[in-house]
């Protein structure tokens, strides 16, 4: 399905959202675990991150109402599904806080959903 998506435009939206909200990275994975959009302010192995997350998602029931989260000493990883085919992952620094990361995940999901539907 992402063949008909304008990936450049999607990446622009994502990068704007990352900068606007002081996030570190946003990753969108397709149903097979491949990254379709990845924007990050620091270096992290995109393929490894996507593969690890996709394998993890194969174990867990991720859906719109059940975002998962990882809290590290200096940052957070939050993720949820984006429509029926995609997974949305946010990496946020500690300053953003967990609650706000979860709110931003929801906002980004709505924002991208509108864009993808249009």
């Amino acid at each position, binding site marked *: 399905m992402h063949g008909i998506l304008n990936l450049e435009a999607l990446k622009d939206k994502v990068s704007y959202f990352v900068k606007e909200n002081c996030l570190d990275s946003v990753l969108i994975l397709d149903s097979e675990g491949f990254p379709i959009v990845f924007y990050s302010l620091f270096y992290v192995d995109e393929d490894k991150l996507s593969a690890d997350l996709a*394998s*993890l998602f194969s174990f*867990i029931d991720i859906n719109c109402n*059940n975002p*998962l989260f*990882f809290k*590290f*000493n200096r940052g957070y990883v939050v993720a949820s599904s984006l429509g029926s085919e995609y997974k949305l992952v946010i990496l946020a620094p500690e300053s953003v806080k967990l609650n706000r990361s979860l709110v931003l995940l929801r906002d980004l999901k709505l924002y991208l959903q509108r864009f993808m539907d249009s």
Partner: protein
Amino acid sequence: MRSVNGFSINGKICVGKYTFEIQTEAKGDSLVVSSVFFKGRVVKQYSSSVPLGEKREVFLRKFHEEVKRRFISDLISQKEKRQVLDSNGNLTATGFLKKLTEKIEKSVTGLRLMYLEINGNPVFNGLVPGLVPLLSDFISLLNKVYGDLEVAAFPIKGRWLIFLKGEKLLSCFLIENHRDLPALRVSIIKPLKELISEMEKELP
């Protein structure tokens, strides 16, 4: 098999393949002593004074039967103690697991321990095979950027798993009762973290 005379009773206690001999005798008018022998040596002694108004011979029989029960339960508790304490009296991994499980049951309702790692060594794993190595890979990838993992939460088969990383422990709990609101799941983390850091003090 037991022999009785006026002031003593002899009998046997069989525990598994071991046979102990037991002799209960009256010492004077008010004291009853029961000795348990194994291969001719006394391994345990119990004593009691005869209650006022009770006949010594009657109490002797009662005490003899009671000692049989007490000896077996003492043996069982000693065996459990050996499993939970090492030779220096420190909690073993099994003992720690048992104590942590009991504490969780008492302090946080609706939780089940699913995984426990002490100082990097898995002690208990009730999770889906393959999940822990996968998580370790993912966590080590992000360690470089974000430091150590403190907590993780995600749904599996309609229930929630919470991973907590302390200084010495990595533990995972399953939320038994259904909590669909993320805020509720977050609220359970603080008491769990307190419990884990309290328990870590007991580790060498």
